[in-house]
């Protein structure tokens, strides 16, 4: 039996915070920035009520470093920012990736470049967020399109960050983050709240504990915190499984490759797409984030006009859900991708999946894509 609806007014930012709390986040450090400040404010208000730590930091570099330090101590940690703050965090994002320390970063996009437009919406930071690492490692990115999905996706991000021991991004934007609406709290979906797989003596044959130990390259090393019983050796420099600084030893190269392999190997498990299907579709419309929400209205309207259209809201943008997208494009002649940036950033990443099909971009810059924009672009 389903519960009675329980409506509350919330923004997407507040729902990211709610999702983090639900997932067991115990540490938040933040620096205010429009349009992400609502996450910071909610965490400052709510996290201490659940015996967690939420503090302000003097800048974004400190915010993420505090979080990664707390993660090394063994707690689930999160911060939130927007484009200008993300610029400052990139050094530490790479560090978290290299040291295999989980952390979730909510990236609420605004119009760039530089200080850009603080209160203007955009989906222009997709590639900037994904390709921030030297070496081109995959940063898992989950993009919600509604406040309800903000909740769900943040629990997913926390789940995968802890599972994979890697930084994970929740990619939102100003229109999702700062728009308030009625949310039925009894219909929210979530991923399970999990704890990092921990090392206990004897759990691997290789005792004593090695911070980056794995048998198969896809394995995620068992965790032990700084301050715990087993000596940890954490380093952002190239290292072997023990954490000792090494240059080009085969084991070190294995460790570096493993950072990518552990994510790639789980691409299918991480895939999150929401499909609004027409089995006889002649066209596939792909979108994500706020534009995916808008697209639902356009799709309903288009069908009234006899269009045969299949729609997919891609939530797990990276790793790219290639298998799912290829399958969805089967039988259609045209693939359309709607996103609020001028160059078609996600389109550039996935067009190779649709060989032989007509590919169209629906783009806007400095303003939301409207249902009308989408309808007028359909074949």
């Amino acid at each position, binding site marked *: 039996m389903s519960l009675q609806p329980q409506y509350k007014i919330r923004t997407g930012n507040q729902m990211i915070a709610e999702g983090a709390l639900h997932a067991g986040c115990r*540490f938040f450090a933040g620096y205010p920035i429009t349009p992400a400040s609502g996450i910071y404010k909610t965490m400052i208000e709510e996290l201490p009520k659940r015996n967690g*730590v939420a503090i302000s930091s003097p800048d974004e570099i400190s915010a993420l470093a505090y979080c990664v330090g*707390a993660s090394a101590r063994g707690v689930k940690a999160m911060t939130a920012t927007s484009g200008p703050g993300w610029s400052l965090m990139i050094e530490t994002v790479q560090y978290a990736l290299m040291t295999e320390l989980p952390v979730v970063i909510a990236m609420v996009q605004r119009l760039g470049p530089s200080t850009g437009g603080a209160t203007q919406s955009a989906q222009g930071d997709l590639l900037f967020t994904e390709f921030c690492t030297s070496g081109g490692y995959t940063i898992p990115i989950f993009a919600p399109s509604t406040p309800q999905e903000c909740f769900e996706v943040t629990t997913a991000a926390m789940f995968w960050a802890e599972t994979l021991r890697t930084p994970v991004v929740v990619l939102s934007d100003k229109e999702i983050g*700062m728009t308030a609406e009625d949310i039925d709290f009894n219909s929210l979906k979530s991923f399970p709240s999990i704890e990092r797989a921990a090392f206990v003596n004897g759990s691997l044959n290789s005792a004593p504990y090695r911070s980056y130990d794995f048998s198969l390259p896809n394995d995620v090393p068992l965790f032990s915190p700084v301050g715990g019983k087993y000596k940890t*050796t954490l380093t952002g420099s190239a290292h072997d499984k023990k954490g000792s600084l090494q240059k080009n030893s085969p084991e070190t190269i294995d460790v570096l490759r493993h950072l990518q392999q552990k994510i790639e190997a789980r691409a299918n498990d991480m895939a999150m797409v929401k499909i609004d299907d027409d089995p006889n579709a002649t066209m596939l419309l792909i979108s994500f984030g706020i534009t995916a929400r808008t697209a639902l209205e356009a799709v309903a309207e288009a069908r009234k006009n006899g269009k045969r259209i299949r729609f997919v809201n891609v939530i797990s943008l990276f790793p790219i859900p290639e298998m799912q997208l290829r399958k969805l494009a089967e039988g259609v002649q045209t693939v359309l991708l709607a996103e609020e940036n001028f160059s078609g950033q996600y389109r550039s990443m996935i067009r190779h999946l649709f060989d032989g099909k007509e590919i169209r971009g629906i783009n806007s810059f400095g303003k939301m894509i*409207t249902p009308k924009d989408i309808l007028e672009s359909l074949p």
Partner: protein
Amino acid sequence: MNTSTPYLKESAAFPFCKGCGHHHYVNHLEEAFAQLKLDPSKICIVSDIGCIGVLDSLFSTPHTFHTTHGRSTAFATGVELADGILYDSKLKSVVVIGDGGATIGLLHIVNAALMNADVTVLVANNMLYGMTGGQNSGFSPLEFITPTTPGGNIVPPMDICSIVKSCGAEYVSRVSSTDKHLSSIIAAAINHPGFALVEIMELCTEFAVGKNAINGKTLQQMVDERNQNIDVLKDGFKRIEFSEVYKSKILGNQKPSQDDTIKRQFTSSLRGKQQWVLAGTAGEKVQLASYLLMRAAITCGLHATQKNDNPVTQGSGFSLSEVCISDTDIFYTGIEIPDIVIISSADGLKEVSSNGTLARCTLSSIIIAEETLSEFSAAGRILRIPMRAICTPQRAAVSAVAAWMTIEKLLPPESIASVIREKYGDKISLYQSDIGKIIPLLTEAMEKNQ
């Protein structure tokens, strides 16, 4: 070379140049751990980048956390916040950083001192960046010759001890790396509950010695001269460590969140989506008016969205709000065709003129505007009423929204009254009076505009 200790690796060959002060630094740090009889699992060495940063690899039993250039103190602060507040607060985090890292990450050191986080920062100050070729740092003295200051440094050095003292640090010390008391000074710093910093003055044999008239003796003189302003351990300690303050002042003072669930208690005859734009001046409750509209709609079982906009300075200029209400799910949350526009001030008119709201109006749009505003044109019916004079600027937007909802009858008047009462209690009578005066004026304006 080191022989077996509880902390250092057996027979670890130090990777430092002959005569480099880092040898003393490592040995004294190890000796400090021994003096305090620390359990190695309760030590976290957080090292920075640079020659001193490789120190982590020499230790066998403490936790080591080799971080990024300049940021080590921030990582250590994160470790200590989690340890102090969420765990048993027994971990000792020791930041191992050079003067280059301290130059880069000065803010992190300053902030740890301001917070009084339980972090011990040991700055190895050899007055230049050694690992990358001897460039001058923020700690290089005047006249100091380095590869990047071949004619002598022309920028004075910072005094890290004075800086952190001015930030409230209570344990601050500056010593030469050859000082025989170094290990007990480090031990006292680690033992200090709260932020502690020791500046350890050293000689870089590779880049400083030979090119500058500097040796162990002059280094000691430099320490003595600079220490004239530093009082160590003089007044006793007054500050409480950050995590203790956080636990008592923040965690200990939490009130449970109030349940803000909205009951669906009324019904609405609205079918489809209705799009509202409210525009006025900051501080005149424009965004509150749209919030009350959204809330009233939700009490009637409708869905609603609200977006606000204002200049970056927040408290001045225009205030704008866009609300969609609908009996079905709302997908597009922007305003395509405004059904109702309420303009309560000149700031609001300027904004809806420039952001395209008025241009998107159609013949069916209703535009309720303050009577005294200058002339403007838009498709739809423009209803001018003296809302500022009747309701006062503070109540104009709320009253105009409520009046139109009453006339339109899409939401029952009780839903509107209930949200205003929730917000204003007994002051609702003021609004009811305003609304009562506006309704006939709006009705009259509608008739004129048929």
